[in-house]
């Protein structure tokens, strides 16, 4: 039986966009750096950042890719409150594949970010153990309030068929 139904195939090309209701802000930059354990002063010290060619503190690059902060959607039963394509495939386990980020310009506290996600492809594959799987590819573009491209993010999510109980 194929994991790829017509209903799922129809999602290819779907696009959804989330705009933050306010600027990214210094506090969220400082909080993220603190949570990661990254004490780089580029994220917290304006004078230091200026000495190194920026207009002031910048955001840690991968913070911008965290879409939940812009999405403002209610939590699902798993507690997750963020961007999701809501693909449910019974008898599979959903796992993360990986990401490719391209950072186009530094992100500043005053930037108001819009994340635009597009489902770019769905492919049927098999694991090395022979299990069926479905690889869902998406791409996000993060832009600022002037429409300038900040970051692109290509992401894969994998649905792996569970081994049948015998």
């Amino acid at each position: 039986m194929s994991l790829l139904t017509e209903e799922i195939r129809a999602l290819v090309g779907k696009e959804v966009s989330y705009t933050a209701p306010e600027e990214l802000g210094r506090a969220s930059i400082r909080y993220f750096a603190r949570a990661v354990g990254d004490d780089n002063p580029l994220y917290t010290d304006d004078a230091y950042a200026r000495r190194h060619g920026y207009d002031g503190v910048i955001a840690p690059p991968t913070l911008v890719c965290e879409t939940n902060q812009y999405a403002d959607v209610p939590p699902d039963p798993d507690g997750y409150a963020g961007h999701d394509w809501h693909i449910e495939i019974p008898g599979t386990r959903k796992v993360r594949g990986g990401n490719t980020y391209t950072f186009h310009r530094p992100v500043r506290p005053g930037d108001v970010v819009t994340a635009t996600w597009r489902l770019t492809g769905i492919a049927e594959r098999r694991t090395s153990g022979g299990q069926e799987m479905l690889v869902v590819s998406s791409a996000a573009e993060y832009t600022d309030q002037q429409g300038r491209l900040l970051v692109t993010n290509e992401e894969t999510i994998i649905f792996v068929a569970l081994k049948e109980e015998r």
Partner: protein
Amino acid sequence: MTDPTVTGPAVTDPTVEAGTEVAPLERTIGLRDMIAYAGATWDWHRLHYDHEYLQERGLPAPVVDGQVFGALLVEQLQDWLGPRAVVRRLHFRFKNLVFAGDTVRCVGRVTAVDGDTIRVEQRILIVDGDEPERVAVEPAGAEVVLRHPEQRDPEQCDPEGTEAP
């Protein structure tokens, strides 16, 4: 805190060339750190903290959010190369789940240097005591550009045109 412009190897040490090892970054990720990261990224998924939820799914402990490894790979490069370094591209694939309390080590190697552009390959290993190392993230890698100290992104100039002192 020491100024990385003084201590950063890329500034004082010219031997960033193909084959050079990237200084490793090691971090133990406890539940407290995971809660902090979940808060900072608005990610309240129960996988990251809810023991009952994890038990029902046969998972031994809270699962570390994979995206934190992107942040650590950037930090590893930035700490090593200093504030001149701008990460332009970063890619990573997840191999194994990492659980609360695990210690991870980011390792890497320069694969190519082309003018001001440095390419590196990276990996993240789980290194817990006497247990054999497991791979958390592989393959991974980045493209980093070293800016000249006086160089500013043209698009990023101060609107007032004020010069940095």
